[in-house]
């Protein structure tokens, strides 16, 4: 193994500890910002669906506010968003560099995307089911949890998979502007010093991550679809 690596990936070997640390950072960013985005996105996405015109908790104002914010943040390219958010990030987490400074903009960048995905998944629920639940005397909260969320689990699993993969992409981009992780690692060595082996091995690592995410997603979708 060692001799193989000296032959094919000599540079990577030199920066091995940093490489391992970068992978850890990427995972850290992915999990932390992922969990926050999931919770916030699921909440706001659900609120958006139920407050839409004609739905169980129709409220034009709440719907419009969320809808506009989602559109606003989705239209800003992530690299620019991170930069624009620097003052806010500093205020919220105290720093805007490193993994710690990357998580806040990652949440802001990822959540609107996930809100849209949740919106789509929940809107797929047949209005007839909502009507049936209402006819049985369910409260709006009961309808949200027992019909909307429960019935759209396969759709939500699909959304979460897609969002996680795209979040992985964002974490790499975060690396370009002072964050840590594989993105930053590849820019420093693969790009700036042109150590191609570092780039390719990183690509393989990312590919493995994506495959694992997709695999888990598919299992959940399969288990919950009937």
């Amino acid at each position, binding site marked *: 193994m060692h001799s193989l690596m000296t032959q094919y990936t000599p540079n990577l070997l030199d920066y091995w500890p940093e490489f391992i640390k970068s992978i850890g950072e990427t995972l850290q960013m992915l999990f932390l910002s992922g969990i926050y985005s999931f919770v916030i996105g699921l909440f706001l996405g659900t609120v958006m669906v139920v407050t839409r015109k004609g739905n169980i908790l129709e409220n034009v104002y709440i719907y419009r506010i969320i809808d506009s914010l989602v559109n606003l943040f989705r239209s800003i390219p992530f690299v620019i968003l991170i930069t624009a958010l620097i003052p806010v990030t500093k205020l919220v987490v105290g720093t805007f560099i490193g993994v710690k400074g990357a998580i806040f903009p990652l949440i802001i960048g990822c959540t609107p995307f996930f809100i849209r995905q949740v919106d789509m998944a929940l809107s797929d629920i*047949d209005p*007839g*089911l909502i*009507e*049936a639940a*209402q*006819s*049985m*005397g*369910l*409260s709006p909260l*009961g309808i949200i949890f*027992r*019909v909307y969320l*429960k*019935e759209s*689990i*396969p759709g939500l699993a699909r959304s979460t998979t897609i969002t996680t993969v795209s979040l992985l992409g964002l974490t790499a981009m975060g690396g370009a502007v002072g964050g840590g992780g594989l993105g930053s690692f590849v820019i420093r060595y693969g790009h700036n010093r042109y150590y191609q082996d570092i780039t390719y091995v990183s690509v393989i690592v990312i590919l493995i991550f994506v495959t694992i995410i997709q695999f888990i997603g598919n299992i959940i979708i399969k288990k*919950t679809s*009937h």
Partner: protein
Amino acid sequence: MIQLVDISKDFISDKVRVTAVKDVNLTINNGEVFGVIGYSGAGKSTLVRCINLLERPTKGKVLIDGIDLVQLKEKELRKYRQKIGMIFQQFNLLGSRTVFDNVAFPLKYRGISKEEIKERVLSLLELVGISDKVDAYPSQLSGGQKQRVAIARALATEPSILLCDEATSALDPQTTKSILKLLKEVNQKLGITIVIITHEMHVIKEICDRVAVMEGGNVVELNDAISIFSNPQAQITKDFINSTSNLSKMDELIEEKSSVVELEPGQRIWRLDFLGTEATKEPIIAEISSKYNINPSIIFANVDVISDTVLGSLIVLVTISEQAEEQVIEYLKEKQIKVEVIKYA
């Protein structure tokens, strides 16, 4: 008892006000099977949704056993809704849950013990005849089975009223029959008032005690089923009835100038309608044949049983003089048989 008092429902779409239901007054008695028939867009689905307030009427009262649902607060209304079951054309079963969980769905989070829920669900599944599908998912069921699950689910909260919104419209004729039979059973065994919305006259024929005919948001005719069939008043009612019997082919034949209805001088085509077992058992054709020395030939015949009453119709071709015709018609009228001269040469 369900009383709809001056119910109107307007919808506003693209700033245009559309009236779906206009000043409808209906009283539906306890324990009866009440049908509402109309073409699509007649407002019947909106009307039935006004009963459990899935659609809030623009004006009017919805009295269930004397209590106006429109006046109730949301929370109280939800309690009342449990006393009004509903089934739908598209079944609306929850796809991520098994048959058992679908039927248990309205019972959960109501402080009912697990054992009691299980007992009730299983007995309901037995009532609707699909005990063997307890653990199946809706996607594994046929349309008829899905509707049976939906009926069990609607009955889970022990309602006194069951609303059926085009419940058989997505089913084939054979399955429709079996579902209607089940509904009749539910009505008789449990004494539940059933309100059926449909555009199919044979659904009415099969199980309804009374019928309201709707057109353009209005109830244009309201009567017991047998009167609706034997003596329809509104044109739309007549159209609906024609759609269920093969006698309407007669009109087509006349229109197409078919050779069957080509008459020679002195020939007539009559339509004879008779009601009740007595009239059905009498050998009317043989009687007039020997009495007036005429030989009617039967072109079409139809016999229906509606609310346990026999309703028959004959279309006959006779050769007869005008004078004799008057006498025969008089004679038939005495026998309580309605005669209509459809065509004469």
